């Protein structure tokens, strides 16, 4: 007869101290700086009616780091992504990517938007393959490989997010969540070294979302792209990121830059650890304060 290995509760009178998050060394962003925002201000419109989306933002992100941007709605989180993705010009200040002014650098960017933004005239597979058609070095072999290697690559990626056998379907034949997953595949297919994710899991149900966190984390550990993730979900930010940047209400300023030290790979169980809850609770408090600071409705 073996003894029951289960520890007997309540024998130890004092509860164990809450384990502090195990800090992995935070990367020195000065040595391998990848993205730098320098006193960036963005305003929409001109004159007295101009709305300031971002005010005097300075942010440094190291190569291969995973950053989550959180904050109240309309605080300019997506604006930062657009700046880094060169979809928007800063009104003042500078944005550097890979050591050069944004737009001039030679970086492969993968971006997933809040909406799936799949091209309705292409099948899911062709949508996912689109970056391979545009971006070098894949572009050079597009004609030769689009029916072979590239196609297999797209199918493999689709299978990974649970969209096996959906490659030939058209976007409107898929549910919103499935479209969002396909759009994530499109952001990943060309091995980007910079991933810009704008609430990519916002429209998904809890379980699919958690499943995709796992997939994204594995992918990040495998290929170490630099990731900028905008999210409203604090658990998501704490699960995925190395650093969480909390922003204020419009005009967006950086309130707190919080390192996240949980060991990798993290699992859903990690999210139920006391340290995790403490962190998300702290973030929540910060954002609630930021919201009430401008009198936003609850």
């Amino acid at each position: 007869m073996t003894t029951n290995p289960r520890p007997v509760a309540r024998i130890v009178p004092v509860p164990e101290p809450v384990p502090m998050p195990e800090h992995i060394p935070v990367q020195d962003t000065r040595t391998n700086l990848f993205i730098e925002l320098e006193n960036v201000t963005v305003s929409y419109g001109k004159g007295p009616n101009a709305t300031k989306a971002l005010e005097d933002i300075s942010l440094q992100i190291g190569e291969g780091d995973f950053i989550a941007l959180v904050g109240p709605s309309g605080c300019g989180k997506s604006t930062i992504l657009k700046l880094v993705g060169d979809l928007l010009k800063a009104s003042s200040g500078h944005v550097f990517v890979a050591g050069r002014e944004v737009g001039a650098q030679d970086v492969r960017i993968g971006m997933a938007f809040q909406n799936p933004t799949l091209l309705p005239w292409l099948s899911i597979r062709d949508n996912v393959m689109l970056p391979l058609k545009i971006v070098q070095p894949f572009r050079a072999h597009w004609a030769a490989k689009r029916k072979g290697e590239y196609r297999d690559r797209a199918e493999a990626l689709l299978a990974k997010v649970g969209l096996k056998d959906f490659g030939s379907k058209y976007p409107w034949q898929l549910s919103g969540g499935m479209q969002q997953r396909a759009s994530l595949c499109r952001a990943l297919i060309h091995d980007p070294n910079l991933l810009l994710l704008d609430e990519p899991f916002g429209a998904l149900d809890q379980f699919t979302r958690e499943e995709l966190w796992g997939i994204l984390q594995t992918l990040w550990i495998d290929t170490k792209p630099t990731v900028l993730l905008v999210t409203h979900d604090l658990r998501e930010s704490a699960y995925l990121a190395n650093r969480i940047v909390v922003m204020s209400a419009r005009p967006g300023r950086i309130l707190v830059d919080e390192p996240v030290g949980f060991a990798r790979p993290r699992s859903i169980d990690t999210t139920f650890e006391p340290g995790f809850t403490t962190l998300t609770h702290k973030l929540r408090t910060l954002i609630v304060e930021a919201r009430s600071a401008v009198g936003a409705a609850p």
Partner: protein
Amino acid sequence: MTRLNREKLASAALIVGVFVVWELACLVFGISEFVLPRPSQIVMVLIDRWPALMPHAVQTLYTTLVGFALGVSAGILIGMLIGSSRLAYNVAFPLLVGFSSIPKVAVVPIFVLWFGAGTVPAILTSMIISVFPVVVNMATGLATTEPELEDVLRTLKATKRDILLNVGLPRAMPYLFASLKVAVTLSFVGTVISETVASNRGIGNMMLIASSNFNVPLVFAGLFILAGLGIALYVIFSAIERRVTGWANRKTEFAMG
């Protein structure tokens, strides 16, 4: 029977019904064939005179197709130019509306003055009448492309040309085809007007001569030929449209194919 088949049957019955009523009305009210010939008379004329009518039909079809092809090519190019930027779109639109509101009949005499009577003015009339719907739709299709779709390519550092080929043009296809169906029927109008005014060949000219001879059944036979050609081209373009832009209509057969 499916709903679609019932609808098809009903519209076939309606067409047959119109001709039957026409035929009966002519018989019952004793309408003279100089005023309104019966459909059966018109069909008889069509069959009897077919060898003589055929060259005219070929001429009209040829002129229309050449004019239409030129008009569509020019329309697509101008439309791409205007639709490529919001500025060009807003600047050029008033001029375009001005041009398109000129009745095209009024320019036939000018073409005749420049190029003489015959095939050339007919082709040109057919061209300018078909160019405007294409320009307007092409430009609108391009100018209304969702910026989000363009952003997908812009983050990939795609060139302007890449964006046009991969997003702009496919996005504008439903608009283009909608205009092609309008343009092809307008093209016939242009040809026939020009043939009526200044030509010695083509269905328009044949109808003019027939009416001056009071050969009313022959005039109507000309109308029937024009209607037949127009329908044929419309059907061809609808078929191409279904294949190319099925995604816009969410046709199930398109998804399966």
